[in-house]
């Protein structure tokens, strides 16, 4: 990056650090922070949407749909996260490739599972072998987002279902007595009051989602944990910038990053909490000093 970095061997002190911290490898580390943030901010809305879908399914009048809702939340919530994270991307990837293989290469007669090997024709590969590496990485990232969304969506569904049930019945009955339709009751009364009860649970989920992001590393995505371990490990003179074991400093940086993120989140949720309670006759609202 700087001109003086051309020959790292002659560097010392601050210059050495300036050059060391601006190697392309370090920029991959810095970029991975963005990857983690992207994961959180893409996953969170999907989780919320899945949560609503799951909650509606569980509350549906149509029994089979209710069964689907309950099956989704109980199954996902009952299986250890880590098993799910390992299972979903592999299963999804192989299922997609299998279907593509059947459709795109009907002429291939050999079985897809040959002994230990999972072999699909070249055209069925997802992404294609000829695709550049970044497409493979984005594909892996999308699979990870799906895995995270499915898992956290189940918890969100439970939280939202509970919150919807917690809104006092009298409120809804009054709304109906005023002649509101079901839809109007939901939009004007039920949904706005639901947030008060859902928010503590959802904020918990958000925190857990933030803290679960190092699982990306398990899915083969080079996230901040991967780079901290890789960069922090002791380096011999095969590398341009040899150094002893510095993992503790790199992990300290991750610690600071996660603490900052969760601290900001708490501020955000405190603000949201005040906001959703505004004008609502709940105990929380009176404590918060707003409302009536």
């Amino acid at each position, binding site marked *: 990056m700087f001109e003086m970095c051309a020959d790292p061997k002659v560097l010392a002190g601050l210059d050495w650090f300036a050059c060391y911290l601006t190697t392309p490898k370090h920029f991959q580390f810095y970029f991975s922070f963005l990857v983690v943030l992207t994961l959180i901010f893409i996953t969170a809305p999907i989780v919320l949407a899945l949560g609503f879908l799951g909650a509606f399914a569980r509350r549906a009048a149509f029994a089979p749909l209710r069964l689907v809702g309950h099956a989704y939340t109980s199954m996902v919530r009952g299986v250890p996260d880590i098993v799910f994270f390992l299972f979903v991307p592999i299963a999804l990837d192989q299922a997609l490739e299998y279907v593509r293989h059947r459709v795109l290469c009907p002429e291939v007669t050999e079985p897809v599972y040959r002994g230990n090997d999972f072999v699909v024709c070249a055209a069925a590969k997802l992404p294609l*072998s000829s695709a550049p590496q970044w497409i493979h990485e984005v594909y892996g990232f999308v699979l990870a987002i799906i895995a995270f969304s499915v898992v956290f969506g189940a918890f969100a569904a439970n939280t939202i279902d509970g919150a919807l049930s917690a809104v006092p019945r009298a409120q809804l009955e009054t709304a109906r007595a005023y002649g509101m339709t079901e839809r109007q009751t939901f939009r004007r009364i039920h949904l706005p009051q639901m947030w008060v009860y859902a928010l503590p649970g959802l904020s918990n989920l958000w925190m857990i989602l933030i803290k679960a992001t190092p699982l990306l590393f398990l899915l083969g995505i080079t996230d901040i944990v991967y780079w901290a371990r890789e960069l922090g490990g*002791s380096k011999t003179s095969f590398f341009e910038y040899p150094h002893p074991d510095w993992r503790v400093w790199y992990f300290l940086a991750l610690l600071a990053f996660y603490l900052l993120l969760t601290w900001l989140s708490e501020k955000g949720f405190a603000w949201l909490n005040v906001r959703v309670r505004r004008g609502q006759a709940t105990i929380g609202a009176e404590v918060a000093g707003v409302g009536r």
Partner: protein
Amino acid sequence: MRKLVIAALVTAVSAGSAFAQQVIRMGTEGAYEPYNFINDKGEIDGFERELGDKLCEIAGYTCEWVKNDWDTIIPNLLSGNYDTIMAGMSITDERKEKIDFTQNYFPPAASAYVALAGADDSVINGNIAAQVNTIQSAYIAESDATLIEFAIADETVAAVRNGEADAVFADKDYLQKIVDESNGELKFVGEDVQLGGGVGMGVRKSDTEMRDKFDAAITQLKGDGTLNAMIEKWFNIKDAF
């Protein structure tokens, strides 16, 4: 005229397909210098990178390097995430049950113990750090010593430095430079142990055509001395083959 155009088109298409090389994805760990590591540019580097690129050139493939954790490197080959493994992987009977290997491109090598400078040879019967799923960890598991496994090689050495393990057992070629540059903090202890059948390229059993091509390419590089020169460059070993 029309025939001419068609003939020209046919040649153009066939020529095009001849140039459109098959893409082979090369899996490696990127944490086992000098075999393979991520250099300061963030690229995969090392003996296997140089050799693999050369082999692809000879075999007529376009190669793309992919890094993958050591622990899952065989399962992910089998499920088709990449097509080869070049990760300092020794050819063993156990691995041959799952995958195929080319002939070795690195001769059977010594594994060695490294401990802190003050230690004596008896530490090799104590707590020994080794990387998970390696021939070294299998060897320690069979022996009287207590095995402590780690996900990456660097952590095995760190475990000795911070006292968690009494010694580390790993490829001597991996440990050599670490000991040389430890300012006397680390030293080799005990006897070297000869393990494995040399390092080869791992491929799926169903990929016989590709394996044969790489095999032929390795034979060629062994024959013309290129491979020996590469091994001397990266490992400082003369006339390996």
